[in-house]
């Protein structure tokens, strides 16, 4: 059970889809087992190489990482499970084994980030996953994928390097890389300035990786041009993991000992979150390409997660963590449905998708369900996190109503852009002269519907993720106070 990350780490040479899928499923199963263990109340710690922390490199799973681990492995498993038909179409046969191994490397990197309790290790895993995702995105069939991925590479590397600088500064002052240890020793540091600088570097670096507005410019292009299944995988978890590290650092490491850090963090994060939510939603409202529309909406959704975190309250945190989970479900489902559509529609501009609903009724129905979840219609997962977020905003004091207004306005914007998709597939007449597409392959469709149904399930019975989110919030807020 403790070897969860190891299984994934040792598997990157899976030769083809089957191997990759089995590995991903196994890691998902282990993540589930870990979650159950964590729900029982025991955080899991594993000291690599037998050295006890803080000297050795420790891996640890608590409620927060368990939830994110579930998201990451779940997204990995689901997208790999469904990937085959779509990948066959987009990637040449002989390149596929390499492609899948890059995929597994990316998954391993993300899992590594989540379970790692060591700041430098996080950097290494972050770069492993980033490098793998550059490769995955560059695998896109369109040549425009290449400049997109180049931009991502440059910005991603800058982000990672910033993070490295920050970690270096902290190490200089505290002499440790273990997160928990860091938190303890920061208190002894006399001169706080380097730590402050480090906090700045780390926050900005991770914000770059997480595509927090206005550092998001790499994201829409990269997601749009990536192979469809890669988009599913990355959209569901890649930026979330960066946010996870960001929240972890800011709450666990800095919050407790750095004077006024919570005010600084809130002042930094909240305006960006609000701007991100509003601007990205507005852009999405006028976007003509389906994938790019959804990618832009991701930037807005990241804003929600950051907004929740920036309240620096328990309610806000649990809303934020919950939204990590729910948005992964909704966006993953949406991109899966897009992959289904793309199986027959080469051109994903909205005005080319007319009449899709008549030809691919199941796909489009799944698209609508996940779209509702993204909007936050009650009965879907998205509603739960919106509810939590609004409650948290109301608790947060005199500005609360303004924030509620922001959330609500952006929900309405979400209605607009989701509805543009619905109208395109349901009401626009089919474009003349295209072939008659039938329903997507069963394999793809089943997974899509599984995710869509999960959206509804977790909208009605959000017990498990909610419990994890709440204990996360207790954990993090406990450190902060």
């Amino acid at each position: 059970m403790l070897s969860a990350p190891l299984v994934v780490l040792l598997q990157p040479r899976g030769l083809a889809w089957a191997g990759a899928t089995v590995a991903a499923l196994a890691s998902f199963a282990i993540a589930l087992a870990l979650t159950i263990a964590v729900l029982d109340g025991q955080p899991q710690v594993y000291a690599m190489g037998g050295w006890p922390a803080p000297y050795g490199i420790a891996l640890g799973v608590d409620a927060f990482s368990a939830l994110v681990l579930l998201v990451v492995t779940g997204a990995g498993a689901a997208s790999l499970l469904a990937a085959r038909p779509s990948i066959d179409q987009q990637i040449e046969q002989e390149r596929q084994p390499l492609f899948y191994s890059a995929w597994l490397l990316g998954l391993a990197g993300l899992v590594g980030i989540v379970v790692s309790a060591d700041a430098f290790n996080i950097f290494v895993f972050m770069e492993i996953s980033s490098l793998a995702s550059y490769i995955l995105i560059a695998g896109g069939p369109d040549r425009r994928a290449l400049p997109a991925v180049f931009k991502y590479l440059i910005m991603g590397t800058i982000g990672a390097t910033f993070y490295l600088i920050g970690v270096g500064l902290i190490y200089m002052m505290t002499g440790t890389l273990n997160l928990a240890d860091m938190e303890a020793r920061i208190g002894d540091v006399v001169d706080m300035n380097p730590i402050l600088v480090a906090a700045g570097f780390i926050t900005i670096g991770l914000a770059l990786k997480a595509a927090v507005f206005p550092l998001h410019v790499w994201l829409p292009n990269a997601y749009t041009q990536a192979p469809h299944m890669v988009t599913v995988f990355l959209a569901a978890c890649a930026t979330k993991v960066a946010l996870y590290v960001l929240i972890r650092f800011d709450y666990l490491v800095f919050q407790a000992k750095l004077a006024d850090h919570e005010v600084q963090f809130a002042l930094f994060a909240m305006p960006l979150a609000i701007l991100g939510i509003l601007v990205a939603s507005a852009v999405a409202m006028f976007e003509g390409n389906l994938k790019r529309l959804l990618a832009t909406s991701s930037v807005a959704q990241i804003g929600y997660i950051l907004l929740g975190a920036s309240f620096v309250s328990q309610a806000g945190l649990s809303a934020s963590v919950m939204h990590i989970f729910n948005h992964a479900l909704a966006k993953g489902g949406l991109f899966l449905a897009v992959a289904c559509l793309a199986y027959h529609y080469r051109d994903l501009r909205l005005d080319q998708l007319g009449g899709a609903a008549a030809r691919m009724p199941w796909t489009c129905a799944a698209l609508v369900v996940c779209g509702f979840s993204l909007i936050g219609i009650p009965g879907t997962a998205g509603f739960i996190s919106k509810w939590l977020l609004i409650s948290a905003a109301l608790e947060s004091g005199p500005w609360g109503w303004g924030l509620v207004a922001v959330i609500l306005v952006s929900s309405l914007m979400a209605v607009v852009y989701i509805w543009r998709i619905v109208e395109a597939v349901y009401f626009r007449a089919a474009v003349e002269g295209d072939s008659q597409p039938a329903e997507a392959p069963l394999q793809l469709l089943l997974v899509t519907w599984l995710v869509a149904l999960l959206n509804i399930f977790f909208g009605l019975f959000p017990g498990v993720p909610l419990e994890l989110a709440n204990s996360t919030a207790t954990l993090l807020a406990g450190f902060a106070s």
Partner: protein
Amino acid sequence: MTPETAILVALILPLGGALAIALAGRVSPNLRETVTLVTAAALIWVVWGLLPTLMAGGRPAVEISQVMPGLTIAFKVEPLGMLFAALASGLWIINSVYSIGYMRGNKEQNQTRFYTCFALALSATMGVAFAGNLFTLFLFYELLTLSTYPLVSHKGDPATVRSARVYLGVLLSTSIGLFLPAIIWTYMVAGTGDFTPGGILAGKLDDPAIGLLLGLFVFGIGKAAVMPVHRWLPAAMVAPTPVSALLHAVAVVKAGVFAITKIIVYVFGIDFLFDAPSSGWLLYMAAFTIIAASLIALRQTNIKRLLAYSTIAQLSYVVMAAAILKPLAEVGAAIHIVAHAFGKITLFFAAGAIYVASKKTELHQLRGIGRRMPWTMAAFSIGALSMIGVPPTAGFVSKWYILAGAFEADNLVAVFTIIASTALNAAYFLPILYLAWFERENSGAPEHGEAPLAAVLALCVTALLTLAFFLFNGPVIELESQVVRGFT
């Protein structure tokens, strides 16, 4: 079947029906329509089976799941909801019969989608009617909006889609933008959202905030079409007529006024609200809507748009009656939901029948139509008289109660509004009747007869119901009196 299971069955039945209809639609239209009728009949049996329990004072309740601590999906049947559910299920079957005549008569496209969404909308309506707390109410309220959207946009041409967009836009933005914050606010203030006799907010909220919260609720529930959030209703007139009948008489708008009444009675509590000066504006807003909508209706030349504005006015009757905050008026509000449903569905059925038979949609085309379609126009006349409130029709009964409540509260604004709007109703309905019965048809008009039998049958039944309700309204009034008993 215990009452608790009956609640669940009432929810699941139309849902299962929708699925069966979708599947049957692939086999044959006849099978599909049989399934629709069977489902509707079964639903009546289940829902009306709950009536004796309610009459005896039982309040069956059932809890499905706890979404978050304090936030549950729960159902609880009480007299208001029971009335609404009984009404909706009863009219569904009549509407289905009518739909069959109308849809076949017009050879509409996508009929399977139509019947499926209809059944879905009914399921959502049952959920609204039986909701045991605000959260559940909201859940089904949104489902109702979404499931009726394909019905409104049924035709699918650009103009229709644009109107449907207004429909969805207004309803969703008010519900997400105002209703949802109001609900969350209530949960935060009261710690619960359960519908409790006497209200849950008493003593927990102070004065200006009460009026604000009430405003969030009233305008958030866009389905009640209190001005200025009434725009969606005329826009929705692009829908096929059976949909308009469902929207305007049975499900959507009634869900709106029903929700407002329920919130006033069970969340605020009428005594609590009566003592809060800041809640007084609601009455004036409703009165304004009644008069303004009636004036607009006076200027309409399209039959369905006229009926739409008349609906807006009639809905505000219910809201105003609820806002009078006296027991008799609350009973009047509940009864008016029923009375207006019978009358308005008759009017829409008649308008649809005229369209099927002759493709006429404008008022001036109705000249002399009474001779060609005597049954339809007789029913139309009964519906119109009920709108005005002339005995012996259903409209008279409810107006009587509302007026009585207004006098009890010494509320002269309400009294005056009712009198003025009655005059206005007469002013826009009576010329139509005159035109239809006493004017001569223009020479050279195309020949046509009555609408298809199914349609005529349905509208005659609803017209008879309108008349019958005047005579046999005892059980309904007794049931609804339970709502206010105990805190007069």
